[in-house]
């Protein structure tokens, strides 16, 4: 395959189960120009460098343009205003400093270690309940039965979203998360669908926020909705608040599920390590960092070059689209010995499992606790788990990558410890 088409192959669903050989080819040129003009950055050193480089911008989302409806009021007044607001009030994942910092700090003010720790205990209980439900099963789908419901319940409780509303935004979250897939970024039809979904979920959030303002509770949305300085309120404008709430909800839906599912897939493929984890739960923190390196939930993120950048023998021109191939940096043999081996005893892992730099995953501590709760319980309670499909079927995303289903045959579920 030609070097300039390797990233095309990465995006191809046929390579979803194992894109790593393609990444190895890409690393032969640390910053590789693809035929479509995108620059793919694939080595640990080059990714580290660009994650801290002020010449790259995260404002990569194409401008919003709501489709024509034929209704002049919508087409000439309402939708142009909505487009303007959408464009100027994107969630902080698509913003640069100083706006990014301001919005993110408002969120982090609500993302307290007390709240995160409360969710840690809650995660243990939730996983225990989810596994109790499988007591008599001889097979289960790890994605649908554990990896999905756990983070979704946790993010809803953190934010203060009523659990009975969850089913309706399951689809919204999947649709909006597709904005991280480059082919959807450039595709007008996909963008239009995203905007429609955004409008639907915005309407929902607007209502919820109104409710939080009337009856504040001890949750993040109530905190963020409050006036600045009042009850820990962040004093965010309404449009930013909605965009931020949507971001947190979508991120909570679409990433931790991959972390848990990818981890369990690796563990079932490495039964010795799975057995070790069952007997030695203190292994979990190190094992999770190794998982975040070995098979992370987010494989790449896109940026644009604000000015020309000389890096690793290549000049990225001003305005170019950049792909930071995080999952490839995680397998860089220049940094990790025997990088394709899953080894929880690996020392001092500097991975890109949560990105890096200003946009480092805001929910990382929560994801770690959820994964620890889930993996330890799964290791201890699933009796002799075997993969039914190897590789399992994957979801379509190449950026947010993980199994759609992870069917396991088991010899039962042990009681809670």
């Amino acid at each position, binding site marked *: 395959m030609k070097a300039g088409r390797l990233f095309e192959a990465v995006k191809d669903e046929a390579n979803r189960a194992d894109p790593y050989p393609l990444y190895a080819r890409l690393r032969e040129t640390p910053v590789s120009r693809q035929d479509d003009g995108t620059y793919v950055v694939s080595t640990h050193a080059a990714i*580290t*460098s660009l994650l*801290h*480089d*002020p*010449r*790259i*911008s995260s404002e990569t989302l194409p401008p919003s343009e709501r489709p024509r409806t034929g209704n002049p009021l919508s087409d000439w007044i309402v939708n142009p205003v909505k487009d303007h607001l959408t464009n100027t009030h994107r969630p902080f994942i698509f913003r*640069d*400093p*100083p706006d990014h*910092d301001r919005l993110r700090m408002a969120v982090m003010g609500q993302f307290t270690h007390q709240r995160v720790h409360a969710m840690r205990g809650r995660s243990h209980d939730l996983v225990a309940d989810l596994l109790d439900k499988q007591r008599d099963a001889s097979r289960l789908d790890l994605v649908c039965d554990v990896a999905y419901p756990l983070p979704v319940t946790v993010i809803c409780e953190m934010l203060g979203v009523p659990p009975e509303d969850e089913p309706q935004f399951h689809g919204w979250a999947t649709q909006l998360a597709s904005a991280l897939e480059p082919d959807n970024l450039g595709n007008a039809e996909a963008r239009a669908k995203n905007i429609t979904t955004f409008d639907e979920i915005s309407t929902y959030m607007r209502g919820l926020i109104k409710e939080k303002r009337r009856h504040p509770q001890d949750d993040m949305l109530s905190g963020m909705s409050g006036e600045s300085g009042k009850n820990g309120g962040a004093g965010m404008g309404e449009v930013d608040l909605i965009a931020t709430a949507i971001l947190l909800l979508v991120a909570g839906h679409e990433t931790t599920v991959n972390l848990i599912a990818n981890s369990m897939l690796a563990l079932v493929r490495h039964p010795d390590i799975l057995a070790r984890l069952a007997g030695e739960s203190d292994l979990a923190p190190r094992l999770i960092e190794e998982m975040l390196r070995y098979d992370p939930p987010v494989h790449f993120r896109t940026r644009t070059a*604000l*000015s020309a950048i000389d890096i690793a023998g290549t000049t990225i021109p*001003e305005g170019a689209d950049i792909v930071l191939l995080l999952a490839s940096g995680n397998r860089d043999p220049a940094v990790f010995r025997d990088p394709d081996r899953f080894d929880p005893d690996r020392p001092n892992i500097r991975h890109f499992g949560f990105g890096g*730099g*200003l946009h480092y995953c805001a929910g990382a501590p929560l994801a770690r606790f959820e994964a620890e709760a889930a993996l330890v319980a799964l290791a201890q309670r699933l009796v002799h788990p075997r993969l039914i499909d190897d590789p399992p079927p994957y979801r379509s995303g190449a950026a947010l990558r993980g199994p759609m289903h992870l069917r396991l045959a088991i010899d039962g579920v042990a009681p809670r410890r």
Partner: protein
Amino acid sequence: MTGIPAEGHAVVVGASLAGLRGAEALRRAGFAGRLTLIGDEPHRPYDRPPLSKAVLTGDIAPEATSLPNLHALDAEWRLGVAAIGLDREAREVRLADGASLSYDRLLIATGSRARSWPNPAEAGLAGIHTLRGRDDAAALRRALDAGPKRVLIIGAGFIGCEVAASCRALDRAVTLIDPGPAPLARILGQPVGEIVAALHRALGVDLRSRTKVARLEGDASGRVVRAILEDGGTVETDLVVVALGAVRNTKWLSGSGLDAGPDGVLCDGAGYVLDAEGRPDRAIAAAGDVARFPHPLYDGRPVALEHWGHAVAQGDHAGRLLAGAETGAAYAEMPAFWSSQGGVTIKSVGLTEGADAMVFAQGTPKEGRFVVVYGAKGRCIAALSFDSGRWLPAYAEQIAARAPFPPIRVGVDLHGLAVLPPGFPEERTSS
């Protein structure tokens, strides 16, 4: 390069951060002989940065600062006994207790000590402190606990500023005096110094710039009661912290034939010490504050750096050098330091000395978070951040590449890039 004899004896003088990391590097590089660490203080190696911060505020105990061993050392320790002489002919270190230790390889990591108040009679008054070691910090902590009327800090360098901020965190009244136009101006320039001044004023520090203490006065019991300033003013005080910088501990090297003085012991690029004729002694390396070495990033100008990260990196380098595990390449670690004062973190990469221009890059002083980049002769030589440390690695790369100044003209969160003079005070001396 000569390998170290299998049964050799490696001696590390200075049970400090640099000495400890050097000893660990020797072992990690495979040195299997005898290893001895000598320290003039009775303590196992400890970490200094918390001494002016969390130790003073009482958040951590002085003895909690002991450093982790990152590698099994299997070493002999001679703690509480200073090295007082070096005989390179006989390959012997003389100790204050009368003993001598022969060595095959020697690491000099004796660091520096606080410069004391120049008038010995005044320096002997009760209530006058310096801050360098763990015991100094414990003594100052006790004095702060006793509820002083007013703390007078002489010298607004990093130690002086950090102590001032810690005293304010304890709600002690503080006067901070410095001859420069603003705190830290000697190192960071006046525009940044003014921002530091504003920070300290906001903390409630009584800051007096452009003046000096002419003399310190005691009462009948020999306890300090006031300072008379050169501008005629007086400060009533019962606790004085002299923060006038550091002097390298090289006195024990006099007579050794090495090129050593108050600025440190001179090394070559590889890290071996040089004698007065400029010849390297390949049995001896130096690391940390005490080592003056030509930095390749700064045209080989000899520098001695009082930075924590430098003590770690150069200690490691020197240990490997003495174990025969270095290729002879010049030590070229990027200088870097941090300081935290009143909840603000100041970080820097590169060296500002010789800067002839500066720009404010990311952020703004108004937001309390910003990056400043320093240039000299059209090249980027240093960068500084206030609560914006995640941008520094990008600038470190530009400094390492000797990029044109200003190195990044178009980027995120940039506001005009007006080139300013850095505003170093005239009396700035090299250090």
